[in-house]
């Protein structure tokens, strides 16, 4: 590949995956005060993939830029990504307001243009809103090809081969740059940021921008009417042996 890669990795700060979220008292959202937040696991995989591409193709990669659109505290996950090997970063500080994927994609489009990115690697979905939208939307806005749910990414000559997870197995597509890739869990195992690298990351660039720096209308298209608990399952029973299990299943007409 003679084209130099300018990789952009958008990352999102979300409630930690191991925490069971609580719905707020007004039934309008999720309680966020005093809850542990982390980088969205799929975004972490995207950062790792970008770093691995750079490590394997040193002369090809100009830089890895990470960007987060979120509250001020999102700079924590940017620092973490810098410690893992990203070169520079941008925080688009939008406060506590939730921004819909369409608006995120529009902001990212401008970030892509400003950074002259030609490969964007995103997580396939954020584990909070579970939309699975942003990568595809960014690809649509830019009119770039998209390879979503990537399980394997290979650079061969002028082309990028991506093996995608689909229902029933996998498929492989090939595309030329510029390209959008979204990551599936199987793509890689993210590294941990070491303390010395965390210290070094503090010296790497972190540009701070605001929503007003972008020409994007973030008016919500979807009005949240309510957020509620899913129906609770009735308490089950424990049986002592296989015979009881089989007879219970027969009672329930499950077998």
């Amino acid at each position, binding site marked *: 590949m003679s084209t130099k890669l300018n990789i952009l990795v958008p990352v999102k700060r979300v409630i930690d995956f191991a925490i069971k979220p609580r719905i707020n008292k007004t039934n309008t959202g*999720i309680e966020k005060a005093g809850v542990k937040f982390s980088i969205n696991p799929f975004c972490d995989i995207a950062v790792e993939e970008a770093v691995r591409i750079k490590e394997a193709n040193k002369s090809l990669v100009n830089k890895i830029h990470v960007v987060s659109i979120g509250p001020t505290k999102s700079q924590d996950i940017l620092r973490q990504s810098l410690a893992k090997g990203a070169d520079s970063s941008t925080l688009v500080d939008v406060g506590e307001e939730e921004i819909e994927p369409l608006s995120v994609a529009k902001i990212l489009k401008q970030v892509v243009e400003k950074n002259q990115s030609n490969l964007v690697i995103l997580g396939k979905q954020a584990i909070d809103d579970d939309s699975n939208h942003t990568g*595809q939307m960014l690809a649509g806005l830019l009119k770039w090809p998209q390879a979503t749910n990537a399980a394997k990414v290979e650079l061969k000559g002028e082309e990028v081969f991506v093996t*995608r997870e689909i229902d029933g197995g*996998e498929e492989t597509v090939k*595309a030329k740059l510029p390209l959008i890739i979204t990551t599936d869990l199987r793509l890689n195992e993210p590294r941990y940021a070491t303390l010395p690298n965390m210290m070094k990351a503090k010296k790497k660039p972190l540009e701070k921008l605001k929503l007003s720096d972008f020409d994007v209308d973030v008016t*919500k298209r979807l009005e949240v009417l309510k957020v509620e608990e899913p129906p609770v399952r009735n308490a*089950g029973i424990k049986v002592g042996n296989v015979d009881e299990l*089989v007879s219970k*299943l027969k009672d329930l007409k499950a077998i």
Partner: protein
Amino acid sequence: MFRALRLASLRNISVSAKRFGSTLAFIEAQGDVISSASLSSLTAAKQIGQPITAILFGSNAKNASSALNKIDGLDKILIASNSEFDHNLPEFLSPVISNLINETSYDFTHFITPATAMGKNILPRIGALLDVQPISDIIKVEDSSTFIRPIYAGNALITVKSNDSKKLISARPSAFEPIGQTSENSYQIEEITPTLETLQIEWVSENLVKSERPDLSSAKKVVSGGRGLKSKENFETLITPLADALGAGIGATRAAVDSGFVDNSLQVGQTGKVVAPDLYVAVGISGAIQHLAGMKDSKTIVAINKDEEAPIFNVADIGLVGDLFEVVPELTEKVK
């Protein structure tokens, strides 16, 4: 004078008809068999309460369209038979679909696709082209602009009302019964010949897991294994016979997939498949929230685990605390 009046009243009729709009439903088919996920999304389309136009893409579209004649409640069928559409590449499909949605003569106000890997791939791209925020993975239709969908791995349900003029939706297959098939209709079939975008991406190959057993997403019974199975061999000698005895599909946790016990396409959970069979048997599965997201709407859940504190027992209807290496073969014998 008289004529002008008649024209005016005709126009009034068409204006009032327009208010109701209609729904474009994307149909996935394997050969001439309509996918079960598509049949489920047609049920969701029906609940929106507007005339439904089904659209089929690819060289087999014509064959598959005859299967749609067995479904009641469609308005018409569009087919685009270009072989370029055979692999459902979103770069091709999205501009074609967004143009159709914008085409005033069709009057589409809604577009619906099953929330499958394919649907999730194309829907947001169409959203970007139409400047619309889609609503993915809906589990309930409240009215034509209000839908319920799960967030946070199914730990909360959000009701959203779309203020966009077009509504783009994907329906979670396990949340809607497949639409019934009985009578023989002969719907009007319209062949469309869209102009294609320039190729920026090419489909190379696929590697599908071949299996005789019921497809995981639509199986009435599912037997799933987790880390507790310890090895690929154990998975095959314990889970497969139990699934065979029950006539069940096979599922797995992320831990089982990561350890190489089974293929990734069998993963059940927030990031894998969401299933809601009549019977779900969880073997050696602790019950992490990401796994529960994919199966907790099953009708009857059975858990077999040696750790009586495992969270899976909080959602199981029937729990058996025991060593799966002893319990599972015994269970297999007794359900045969």
